[in-house]
């Protein structure tokens, strides 16, 4: 059995407009689960027409608060993504890496995960 799974963003969101943070959260939860289960994840952007940084921050940027950069580099890949969407995703990832360099942020994420966050 292959340990690579393909997650289709269009299918998870149910629309070609991938713009809302809440929809990004649904994608995040699936990626997070698959990575926790030891899978390699290929994310397909086929049929996605509109993307926002808000969606990508929730879906992918957030992963950098939960997993090591090296692990994500090794086990996450994208397919069927348009050039300009790839450029946007790259900026989201670079911003996320920068954001999670701050130990206070990591602590806040830890608190959030433990359920003792007030946000």
């Amino acid at each position, binding site marked *: 059995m292959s340990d690579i799974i393909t997650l289709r963003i269009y299918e998870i969101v149910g*629309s070609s*407009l991938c*713009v*809302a*943070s*809440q*929809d*990004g*959260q649904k994608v995040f939860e699936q990626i997070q689960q698959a990575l926790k289960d030891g899978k390699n994840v290929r994310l397909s952007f086929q049929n996605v*027409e*509109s*993307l*926002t*940084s*808000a*969606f990508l*921050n*929730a879906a992918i*940027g*957030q992963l*950098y*608060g*939960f997993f090591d*950069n090296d692990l*994500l*580099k090794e086990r*996450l*890949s*994208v*397919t069927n*993504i348009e*050039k*300009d969407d*790839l*450029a*946007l*995703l*790259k*900026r*989201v*990832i670079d*911003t*996320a890496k*920068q*954001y*999670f360099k701050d130990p206070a*942020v990591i602590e*806040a*994420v830890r608190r*959030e*995960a433990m359920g003792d*966050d007030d*946000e």
Partner: protein
Amino acid sequence: MPTRVDISLPPIRSDFQGFTTLVNLAERVNSLEYSPIALDMSAANWVDANMCAPLGAILYRASHQLNMVRFEHLTERVQKIFQKNGFLSFYGHAKKVDEWGTTIQYQSFETKDDRFFGAYIEQHFKNKAIPEMSEALRKKFWESIFELFSNAVIHSKTELGIFTCGQYFPNKKHIDFAIADLGIGISQTLIDKKGLNLPPEEAIDWAMEGRNTTKTGSIPGGLGLKLLREFIRLNRGRIQAVSFTGYWEQCADGTIVKKTLPYPFPGTVVNIEINTADTNSYILSTEHKPEDLF
């Protein structure tokens, strides 16, 4: 019985003067309850259609405080604008058909209405005259609008909604689009989340800078407004942002204007003007390879 409050409005354009008119109105109606409010429009021979978003936000709040708002003595021209974009339907008037398909209807949303907002944008930009712009520009424009909506949903903490309206001007080759919320405003968000107490126009400036974010949880932020700014700069369009008493504008030549309004706007407004004749491809000069992404 509360006495009727009469307020006369001048022309309202998308500029500092126009927003000054709106915050003066907001100040007048702020503390009213159960009052009939009559807006005398006889002197308003023009209202930019997109300004219906912040005007509607102010009036929605007034109605929420159980005041009864009505428009009186509308000039023919303004009545036509307000009827075509559906604004007057909220105030007891019939809707007029938009025969040229150039309006982006006045609409209010709740923060959970992302899907409804998406459908609204699709409805106004598919199979309509709006506008004759390149595919690359259309995509960037949609994304900008969605970024603005997401920004209002994530940061505003509005309980009274998000208001949008726009207009396409085929001869001038631009689209104006405004999104207003009745949230806590950017300066208050900065105080609450960062302990940073800046004058409201400086708070807007802070939010417009790349990588500045008030996000503190597990989801990073701070790119939406920066992307919007970059795109509109390349497009030689304009952005205006008003939050509390802050007024901030990025002009077509890229210069930034910051001013203080005499009274607060009860939330945040972002108004964008897109140059639709723009033929930039918006493919970034740096090519990224998927394998180098993460």
